């Protein structure tokens, strides 16, 4: 991609037209109406209020406002109006990248998909990748460089930096984990330029503990890279590899690959999870053990002790036992590991200490898993020092005033660093501090300089994926608010002048590429990755120091007593807080609790009862607030009773409790970081929890958690399935006489489905579905679904077109199991919604879609009442302009919208369409090319299907007996929801199969 082509990215049609209005918009921080909104009664406001009374006389006030459009007079190259273009890029996160493909419409990126060619995603995405496009269009992003709160230019910053820093300066760099080749090249240059500088990689939920663990086990820092596709037995010790763990797309893909079941002869993997909180991974476990987070370590030691006699290399544990040694799980797991040498894997959560990871690594090596189910990879850019200790040292230096400059690239330590470090105080003592951030956030406020950060869709960059595939980050658009990337900021500091990021990236990657021809570069940009490169798999063996290190630690390991323990976990949707201002993620129900817009203290029913937490009735949304005191620091939060949580333990999640960030983040939830200290980073055995007597309102999308014995999710163990493969179909009886077509008779005229049309249908495999919710975000991005805010969700008006229902089964006070069930519109052939609409706004198409004609809808809501799946969503207010745009900055949010899907106005019903815009595009293409209205199988991929890392969703023409969806539906596990109503859903489910161990049943 040459420099000229870069010109084809523009921020909006207005910019292309370069009119005065647009310049004014760019210059002003808030568009014109914003200031008027704040006045009590401005002229505009007065007219609006008057409008209410005038509305009675004439309804004109209710109609959509008229909007001006600008014609495109000069056509950019490649751009065909109405046709999206796709570019490869990758998203940096936690020190690795994931390959993506970004859809751009008229120069605006509108949708992120996985890059099918890229092994890190294989075409799928996770929540953060799917939702991050909204981060780019966040109107609350910082819009310029600031020095002590005053606007400055980036050039002024470079001048000041050149003046302030010299070779003798004590510079401290604090960055997020970053695999960028260019950034690491600049890092070396920076450390050479400032010899006394310190470089800290601070990532609160990063892999440092795992790296330190491998240092203990193998003598050097190695990345732990699981390959679950090879594993028959997966043992997760508080490792949420499907949820918040690193590289989860690849892990989910490989896990579900080992879980695919097409016939009774198939074998599937078995997942054991031991954890305190009910994680997403735990909810998919075949067996799950509730233990406190701090007991994971003694549990691993007990397991190693049991295995010591049978496996080589664990001699340090011979004869070791603790309270867990007699636990039935230890013997079962030991047996599984011994019976599945080379095909089992033990994983531990990233927040557990280095010793735990060292022991896990030792067991994996001893069980011959290394190089097979788990690889230990040599990283090109590793910091040798213990980064936890380094951060502590650096902060104490800062407090002591011995640091001349702190340069923070993209991290937010004032918010996330352990509170006892008092990072903000230390930072305020540094004469020259620079913070590169998306928002003018907690750290920016304390720093002298704030530089607005570019989103990765706006800058040039590079990086390695988790397994070391070099990938390129190419911009989809010019930085919306003129932001800078970490490469540009560090490059400018190192070189003393602005750099050209593209040239630098090209320079960094050319040695890896083995050349720098424009053909190579173009191929790289086109593919988004360099094929055939990965990190070297270190052939590991236990280091000599391991045994002695472990022997020394044995006596320090103890099993927790009955005292209440606190665990801090990354928020399932907001992570450490970097996604807090993302409305889609904020409103996505937590996969387990189904809470939106809030942080809660999770605890088991038994613990809640002991604390005197009130049991709630259906329809009561007020929750008892508890006060948690840890290391002398107190946090008050609403309690949440989570069946399956470990007893005498409380889990809280990070990401909430931010202020002055933006419209979504501000004032939502409670900040869990305020109880995180260096001594007890992510769990603390001795906390005290008490009820405060206050109550707090929580918005959840699911208020009832039992299936009430109704056969919605049908499941069986693999043994039961082999005995009766048709068990799912046998669970309901369809009454009534049968018609000629083999279907029950219907009162209404049945829709005819002509042969020249494809007949769309969907199958969702509940054995694959892990319940992560990425389908919901993908749908939201594809179909312009609005964010509605906590108040509206609390009132039960969530807008998601596809939701994931979560039910508990089993003993509430014991270890209940969880099932997930995604529910989109079922596109019933005899749709009850269609029969009752008085104006025929919802009708059936010839290709079997239950269509919703927004323009015709008058909003009686009768269809929603009559929908047995409750998938129809009503625009009670003018949601598209209410939450994210707030009237102040509509243009930025409008740019994020998919132009192929209309925005629904107030008073209109909406629902899943099977992504009709994608169907139509494929049908048109097929009609032009082959004169057939039937696109080839696989040509239409719905947004949910495309994003799903578990490949649980198949979609296609059900008339074509050879299509993937037809073959999937032919599986004996296939069943229809509410089949007995004779509504004939086109979406069917494949029953869930579990693989329990006979000794633990």
């Amino acid at each position, binding site marked *: 991609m040459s420099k000229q082509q870069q010109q084809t990215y523009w921020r909006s049609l207005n910019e292309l037209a370069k009119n005065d209005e647009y310049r004014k918009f760019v210059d002003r921080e808030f568009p014109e109406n914003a200031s008027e909104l704040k006045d009590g009664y401005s002229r505009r406001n007065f007219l609006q209020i008057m409008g*209410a009374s005038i509305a009675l006389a004439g*309804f004109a006030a209710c109609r959509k406002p008229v909007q001006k459009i600008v014609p495109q007079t000069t056509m950019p190259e490649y751009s065909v109006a109405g046709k999206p273009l796709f570019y490869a890029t990758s998203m940096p996160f936690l020190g690795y990248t994931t390959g993506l493909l970004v859809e751009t419409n008229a120069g605006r990126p509108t949708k992120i998909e996985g890059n099918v060619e890229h092994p890190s995603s294989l075409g799928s995405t996770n929540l953060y990748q799917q939702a991050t496009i909204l981060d780019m269009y966040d109107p609350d992003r910082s819009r310029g460089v600031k020095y002590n709160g005053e606007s400055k230019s980036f050039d002024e910053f470079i001048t000041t930096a050149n003046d302030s820093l010299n070779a003798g300066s004590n510079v401290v760099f604090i960055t997020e984990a970053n695999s960028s080749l260019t950034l690491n090249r600049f890092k070396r240059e920076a450390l050479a330029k400032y010899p006394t500088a310190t470089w800290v990689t601070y990532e609160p939920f990063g892999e440092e503990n795992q790296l330190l663990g491998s240092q203990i086990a193998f003598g050097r820092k190695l990345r732990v890279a699981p390959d679950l596709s090879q594993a028959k037995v997966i043992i997760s010790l508080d490792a949420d590899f499907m949820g918040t763990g690193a590289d989860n797309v690849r892990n989910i893909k490989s896990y579900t690959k080992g879980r695919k079941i097409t016939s009774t002869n198939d074998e599937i993997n078995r997942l054991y999870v031991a954890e305190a909180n009910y994680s997403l991974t735990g909810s998919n476990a075949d067996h799950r053990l509730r233990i406190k987070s701090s007991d994971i370590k003694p549990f691993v030691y007990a397991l190693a002790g049991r295995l010591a006699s049978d496996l080589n290399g664990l001699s340090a544990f011979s004869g070791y036992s603790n309270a867990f040694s007699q636990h039935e799980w230890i013997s079962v797991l030991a047996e599984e590991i011994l019976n599945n040498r080379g095909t089992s894997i033990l994983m531990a959560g990233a927040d557990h200490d280095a010793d735990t990871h060292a022991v896990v690594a030792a067991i994996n090596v001893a069980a011959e898993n290394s190089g097979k189910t788990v690889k230990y990879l040599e990283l090109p850019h590793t910091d040798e020092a213990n980064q936890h200790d380094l951060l502590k040292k650096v902060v104490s230096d800062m407090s002591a005033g011995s640091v001349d400059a702190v340069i923070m690239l993209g991290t937010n330590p004032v918010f996330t660093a352990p509170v006892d470090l008092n990072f903000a105080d230390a930072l305020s003592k540094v004469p020259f501090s620079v913070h590169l951030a998306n928002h003018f956030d907690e750290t920016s406020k304390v720093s002298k300089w704030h530089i607005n950060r570019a989103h990765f869709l706006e800058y040039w960059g590079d990086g390695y994926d988790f397994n070391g595939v070099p990938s390129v980050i190419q911009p989809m658009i010019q930085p919306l608010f003129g932001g800078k990337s970490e490469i540009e900021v560090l490059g400018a500091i190192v070189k003393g002048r602005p750099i050209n990021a593209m040239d630098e990236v090209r320079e960094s990657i050319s040695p890896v590429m083995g050349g720098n021809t424009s053909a190579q570069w173009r191929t790289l940009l086109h593919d988004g990755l360099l094929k055939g490169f990965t990190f070297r798999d270190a052939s590991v063996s236990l280091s000599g120091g391991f045994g002695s290190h472990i022997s020394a630690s044995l006596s320090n390991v103890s099993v927790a007593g009955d005292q209440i323990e606190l665990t801090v976990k990354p928020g399932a949707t907001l992570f450490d807080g970097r996604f807090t201002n993302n409305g889609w993620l904020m409103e996505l129900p937590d996969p387990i609790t189904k809470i939106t817009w809030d942080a809660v203290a999770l605890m088991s029913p038994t613990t809640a009862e002991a604390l005197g937490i009130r049991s709630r009735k259906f329809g009561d949304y007020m929750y008892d607030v508890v006060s948690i005191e840890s290391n002398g620091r107190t946090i008050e939060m609403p309690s949440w009773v989570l069946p399956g949580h470990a007893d005498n333990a409380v889990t809280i999640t990070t990401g909430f409790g931010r202020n002055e960030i933006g419209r979504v983040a501000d004032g939502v939830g409670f900040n869990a970081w305020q109880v995180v200290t260096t001594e007890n980073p992510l769990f603390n055995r001795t906390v005290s929890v008490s009820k405060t007597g206050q109550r707090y309102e929580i918005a959840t999308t699911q208020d009832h958690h039992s299936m009430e014995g109704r056969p919605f999710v049908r499941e069986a163990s693999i043994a039961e399935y082999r005995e009766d493969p048709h068990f799912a179909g046998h669970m309901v009886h369809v009454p009534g006489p049968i018609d000629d077509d083999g279907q029950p008779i219907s009162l209404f005229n049945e829709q005819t489905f002509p042969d020249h049309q494809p007949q769309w249908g969907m199958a969702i495999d509940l054995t694959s579905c892990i319940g992560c919710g990425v389908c919901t975000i993908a749908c939201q991005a594809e179909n312009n679904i609005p964010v509605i805010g906590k108040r509206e969700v609390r009132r039960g008006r969530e807008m998601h077109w596809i939701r994931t229902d979560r039910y508990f089964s089993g003993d509430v006070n014991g270890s209940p199991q969880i099932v997930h069930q995604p529910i989109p519109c079922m596109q019933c052939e005899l749709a009850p919604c269609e029969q*009752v609409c008085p104006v025929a706004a919802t009708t059936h198409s010839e290709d079997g879609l239950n269509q919703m004609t927004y323009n015709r809808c008058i909003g009686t809501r009768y269809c929603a009442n009559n929908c047995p799946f409750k998938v129809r969503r009503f625009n009670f207010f003018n949601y598209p302009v209410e939450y994210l745009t707030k009237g102040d900055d509509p243009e930025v949010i409008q740019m994020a919208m998919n132009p192929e899907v209309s925005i629904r106005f107030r008073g209109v019903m909406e629902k899943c369409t099977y992504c009709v815009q994608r169907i139509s595009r494929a049908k048109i293409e097929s009609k032009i090319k082959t004169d057939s209205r039937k696109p080839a199988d696989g040509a239409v991929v719905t947004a949910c299907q495309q994003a799903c890392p578990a490949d649980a969703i198949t979609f296609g023409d059900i008339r074509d007996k050879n299509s993937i969806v037809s073959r999937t539906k032919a599986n004996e596990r296939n069943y229809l929801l509410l089949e007995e109503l004779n509504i004939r859903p086109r979406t069917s489910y494949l029953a869930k199969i579990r693989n329990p161990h006979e000794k633990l049943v």
Partner: protein
Amino acid sequence: MSQNLTYIPEPELVKGNHTFGSITRLVGDIVETPAPKWWYIAFAISNALLGLLLAMIAYLFYEGTGIWGLNNPVGWGWAIVNFVWWVGIGHAGTLISAILFLFRQGWRTAINRFAEAMTIFAVMCALIFPGIHVGRIWVIYWVFPLPNQMQMWPNFNSPLLWDVFAVGTYFTVSLLFWYVGLVPDFATLRDRVKSKWGKIAYGVAALGWTGGNRQWQNYEKSYMILAGIATPLVLSVHTIVSFDFAVSIVPGWHTTIFPPYFVAGAVFSGFAMVMTLMLITRKLYGLQDIMTINHIEKMNIIILVTGNIVGFAYIMEFFIAWYGGVEYEKAAFINRAMGPYAWAYWIMFLCNVISPQFFWSKRMRTSIVASFILSIVVNIGMWFERFVITVTSLAQDFLPSSWGYYSPTYVDVLTYVGTFGLFFTFFLLFLRFLPMIAIAEVKMVLPQANPHNYDEDGNEFKKIAEK
């Protein structure tokens, strides 16, 4: 044998030895003399409530249906509850005037005008709700089959569309029926009022009525025909309203018992409402001679009968839910009685099934105080019946994941309260400007109107009068 048989004359329908003239004066004077002070106070309150209604509607139009308490499972809340409740109340008028007319129930004449007026105003209140509850009010006319160049027709499968026709027809016919009955009385007033504008207004409304023989013949025929047309409508309108629920597949709605059950319930609540209004009006205007205790007792008997039909339906619903064996329906009914809305269910049951049982006692039936209290209790119960049907069924239907509790917002409540403003504004205007009792019809049931002028024993009329 024969000596044991004694003739018990029908109780007199009008008490107090009224003559034709005194009846005219009794009713006509209300219109012709200045309104009493209480009327102005009541009218001011009603107007304030009407203003509240309009303000709530304006707010609704400006903001959208989100200001109500509706949510995802519960797409219909107070608006539809109020609609069904008001339509139900609107049943009594036509039933009294048309069906009782066809059955030659002379006692209806004391209350028919009054009840018909109530019907019309109640239906007006009802019609507001389907009009305003839609999301896009400005295109509400799409429910009518209006020819258009896109050839877009409404969906004739939809019960909501049937509703539009059923309630619309009912309103039109009720209005016509009421007006036709008013014509002779308009003429009476035209001949009596002193004011010029009054003469013109009543004169125009009277359509040139002179009371000629030919006019009476045509009048009686048309009245009979309209009664014939109105009679099936009484049954059809609430049947079709019930189809809104019964035709759907929601457990708790999808029930074949709904049409008769809704009609009985409507008559039940309609009579209760007539009772409430009548007891106040007869006291305030001194009409005890015309609206006698016999009328009250007869109406209480109807309330008792329909109340028992409704109670039977409640129990039968449970029986069928169990007998039918549909899991979801069973759960819906168990939830009604024991679930989160059990309080509403038991209020309904107490008000509608238990409270009318007092009317087995003649003392209660003929007690003004008891009748007044129970008539209000019945209407509270009937409101809750609609609430229970509409809301509880939606709140907990098939997928437990989607269950959601519904609670109204203040706008829901104030809109409902506001409809009373609309109702009473019109009702008070009716009391003030129209003859609230069918003067001509009451005269027909006076003994003097009996053309034979003899009783069954051959005694002259005068002698009976003297007795």
